[in-house]
C-alpha cells in the first residue's frame, strides 16, 4: 500500500511563551511572536523586516526552541536567532520564559555596551534608541568592562549625515539600505572584529536621494541627521503624521513631522511599534531626501493628525492631549490676591546673584 502523503497544513501552530498562534508557513519565530505582541516578541537590533538579508547578527533575539515540530519534537541544542529561524508546525518556543535566553540576552547587552558609550544625555537618538530600551530591560546596573573603549573621529558622510562610529554596534542595517534602496552604494564595513567600522569607500560622501533612510534604520545614535543634531530633544517635539505629493516615484511621501510649536525640526519615515518603517500597500514607506531634508515647513505638507505613540514611550512625555491640568486655586483661597514671595533666593545666595 502506498504511503499516504499528507499535505502540509495551511497554517502552522507555534507556541511561544505558552501562547499558541497560527501563522503562515515561512513565517519566522520573531514575526510570529510579533503577531502575539508585547514582551513575547524578542528584541531585535539588527533585524529589519523591510531589509532583505538583515538579522542574525546582533544575537539579541536568541530564543530557545523547546520542541522543533510535531513531527520531530526534539529540542534544538543551541539557542537560535528568532529572526532567521522559520516556525514549524507544532514548534514550542521559549523567549522570556527561558532562563537560558534571558541569561544569553543579558550577555549580549553587556557585549553591545562594551564599546557603546552611555552618552544618552547628549545623543540625538536618546528616547528613540533601541539599545537604550534593551539596556533598561536586560542590562545590569554596572559594567564589568574596565578597559579603554574604542573611539573614532566623527565623520561627515555627505551633506546630511554625520557618522558617530563610536556609537555604532555594527548591525549592518545601513549597509543593507545602501545595497537595496539607494543607487550608489559608497559605504560599507571596513576591517574586521572589534576594529570593524562603517565607513565610506575612499572618502567618498554618501550622496543619493534615499541616503537619509540610513538614519532611520540605525538602532542607536551612530548615524545622525545633520539638520536636526542638537537642535532639540525628541521628547520636547511633537510627532505629526503628514504627507505630500512627492514627484520621486520611489518615495511614498508619507512622513512624520517632529514639531516644536509650528516649527518642523525634523522629518522621518513613519515607524511602526517595532521601530521599523511602516508599510503602505505592502511596500515599505521610505522617503526621499527632498521630503526629509528640504521640506521643513508645515505648509509643505498635508497634516493628517498626531502620530500614535506608545504612552510608555519617552516621546509621549509632555504630550497629554486630553490631560486635565489641575486648577490653580491659590488666588481663590487668597481672596483674589497673587501670592507674595516671602524670600527671593537671589537676594541671599552668592551663587548667581541677582545683579
Amino acid at each position, binding site marked *: 500500500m502506498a504511503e499516504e502523503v499528507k499535505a502540509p497544513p495551511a497554517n502552522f501552530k507555534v507556541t511561544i511563551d505558552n501562547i499558541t498562534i497560527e501563522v503562515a508557513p515561512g513565517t519566522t519565530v520573531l514575526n510570529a511572536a510579533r503577531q502575539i505582541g508585547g514582551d513575547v516578541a524578542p528584541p531585535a537590533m539588527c533585524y529589519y523586516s523591510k531589509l532583505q538579508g538583515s*538579522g*542574525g*547578527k*546582533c*544575537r*539579541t533575539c*536568541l530564543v530557545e526552541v523547546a520542541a522543533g515540530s510535531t513531527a520531530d519534537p526534539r529540542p534544538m541544542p*543551541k*539557542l537560535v*536567532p528568532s529572526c*532567521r529561524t522559520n516556525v514549524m508546525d507544532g514548534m514550542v518556543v521559549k523567549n522570556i520564559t527561558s532562563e537560558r535566553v534571558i*541569561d*544569553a540576552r543579558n*550577555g*549580549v547587552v*553587556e*557585549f*553591545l555596551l*562594551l*564599546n557603546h558609550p552611555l552618552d544618552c544625555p547628549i545623543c540625538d537618538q536618546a528616547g528613540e534608541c533601541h539599545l537604550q530600551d534593551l539596556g533598561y530591560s536586560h542590562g545590569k546596573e554596572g559594567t*564589568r*568592562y*574596565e*578597559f*579603554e573603549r574604542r573611539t573614532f573621529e566623527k565623520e561627515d558622510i555627505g551633506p546630511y549625515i554625520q557618522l558617530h562610529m563610536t556609537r555604532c*554596534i*555594527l548591525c*549592518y542595517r545601513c549597509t543593507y539600505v545602501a545595497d537595496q534602496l539607494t543607487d550608489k552604494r559608497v559605504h*560599507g*564595513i571596513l*576591517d*574586521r*572584529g*572589534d*576594529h*570593524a567600522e562603517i565607513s565610506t569607500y575612499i572618502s567618498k560622501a554618501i550622496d543619493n536621494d534615499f541616503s537619509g533612510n540610513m538614519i532611520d534604520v540605525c538602532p542607536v545614535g551612530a548615524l545622525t541627521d545633520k539638520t536636526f543634531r542638537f537642535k532639540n530633544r525628541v521628547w520636547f517635539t511633537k510627532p505629526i503624521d503628514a504627507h505630500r505629493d512627492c514627484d520621486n516615484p520611489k518615495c511614498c511621501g508619507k512622513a512624520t513631522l517632529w514639531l516644536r510649536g509650528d516649527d518642523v525640526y525634523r522629518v522621518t519615515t513613519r515607524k511602526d511599534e517595532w521601530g521599523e518603517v511602516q508599510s503602505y500597500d505592502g511596500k515599505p514607506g521610505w522617503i526621499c531626501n527632498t521630503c526629509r531634508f528640504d521640506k521643513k515647513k508645515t505648509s509643505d505638507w498635508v497634516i493628517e493628525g498626531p502620530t500614535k505613540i506608545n504612552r510608555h514611550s519617552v516621546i509621549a512625555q509632555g504630550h497629554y492631549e486630553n490631560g486635565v491640568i489641575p486648577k490653580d486655586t491659590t488666588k481663590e483661597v487668597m481672596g483674589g490676591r497673587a501670592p507674595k514671595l516671602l524670600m527671593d533666593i537671589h537676594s541671599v545666595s552668592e551663587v548667581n546673584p541677582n545683579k
Partner: protein
Amino acid sequence: MGRKLLLDKANVPGIRSFEVYRREGGYRSVEKALKMSEADIVEEVKKSGLRGRGGAGFPTGMKWSFIAKPEGVPRHLVVNADESEPGTFKDRYLMEFIPHILIEGMIVSSFALGSNVSYIYIRGEYAWIVDILEEAIAEAKQHGFLGNNILGSGFNCEIYVQRGAGAYICGEETALIESLEGKRGNPRIKPPFPAVKGVWERPTVVNNVETIAAVVPIINEGGEEYAKIGVGKSTGTKLISACGNINKPGIYEIDMTISVEEFIYSDEYCGGIPNGKKLKACIPGGSSVPILPANLLLTTAKGEKRMMNYESLADGGFATGTMMGSGGFIVMDEDQCIVRHTLSLARFYHHESCGQCSPCREGTGWMEKILKKIEYGKGEIKDIDLLWDIQRKIEGNTICPLGDAAAWPVAAAIRHFRDEFEWHVLNPEESQKRNYGLAHYADPIHVPSAV
C-alpha cells in the same frame, strides 16, 4: 608501523610530477570511478566510515548524500585548503609534495557529486603551493583526466584554484563560499546549508583537502577495506601535524589505533620530549580544541588508555576530554606557561573574529585584554571568574563556530589549570619578571588604577 594510505609514496623521488605519480599507480581510482555510478561511489564512501578531516569529523558519505539535485542546476565541489588553524599544517604537506592525490580525489568526488566545475580555495599564504597545484591540474588535463569527456566517459570537469586573502574565518565553509564569490569573508547564517545553496546559490559540498585525498584509497580498495583500518567510528588513517616540545615535529599518518602515549614517546612518531622534561599538557586537535593536562591526556575518564581517535579523545566530554579536531597536535612541557599560551590563542581569535555577531566581536577582545592583564601580573582573582563567564556567554551564541573556537581554549585552561591563573594573580612581581621576548605584547595595558 601503521599502514599509510596518503603518504605511502611521499618519499618517491619526483612524485610531484604526473609521470611518476601515474607510474606509481596514480589516477587508478578515476579509471575505476568513471565506470561506477554516482550513487555507488557515495555508497563506497559511506561504507568507508570516512569522517571529515577538517575538524568537525562529520561523516563524509552522509554529507555527500545531503546535496540537493534540482533539475538543471549545476552543483559544485569546493576543497577547503584554507588551513589556518594554529598547529595544523598537514594539508600543506599533502598539497606541496603529492598534489596529484588531491586532484585525483577531486575528480572522483566531482563525478560522484555531479560537479563539472570544482574549486580549491587555498589560503593566500600558501602562494607557492598554488603554482604546484596549477601545474598538477594542467598535467592532469594534458593527460585527459580533466577537461571535457574525461577518459571518454562523457564526464566534464574543470578545477580552479582560488587564493584567499589570509583570514582564518574563511576556513569556515560559508565564509569560504562568500570569499570564493568575491565578497567579504563573513559566515552566512544557516539554513540554508551549502548542500542546498552554496557557491553561486547552487548546491555545494565543501570538504577538507585530506578528506578528498582519502577518497582515492577508498575507491581503489573499496569502502569496506578502508573501514577495516582504525577502530570503531574512527576508520582509515589520519594525518597528524605534531609540534611543540617534542623531539620530532612533523606530519605523521596514523591509523588511529595507537595510544596518545605511544604517539608522543615512541621513536616512530614524536620521539618524546626534549631534555627529558615532563609532559605538562597537550592540545591534540588544533588550537581551538580544549587543552588537556598530562594525566587526562594519557588516561580517559574511564581510566583507560587514551587513544589517538575521535571517540577516545572526546571521552567524558570537555570536563575530561577534548577533540580530534584537525589533528594539530601541540605538546607542552613542564616549563610552559598555560596563561601565556591561552593569551596567545585569545589574541589570535580576537584578531580573526569577523565582527558580524556581537558576542564574538566584543567577547574575544575582552578575553584577550583580561588574559593580558593576568599574564602581566595585574590581574585579580575576580578576573578569572569573569573570563569564565565571558567564554560561557560566547559559546554557542554566535553565527559560526569561531565563537566556540575562541571560548573553548579559555574554558579548558581555567578548568584544568586554574591554580596557574591564580599564581599569576597572587605573584604579580614574579609574573612581570618573566621575559618571553615578545615585543608585541609590550604595549601598555590600559587598566584604570582605581579598579
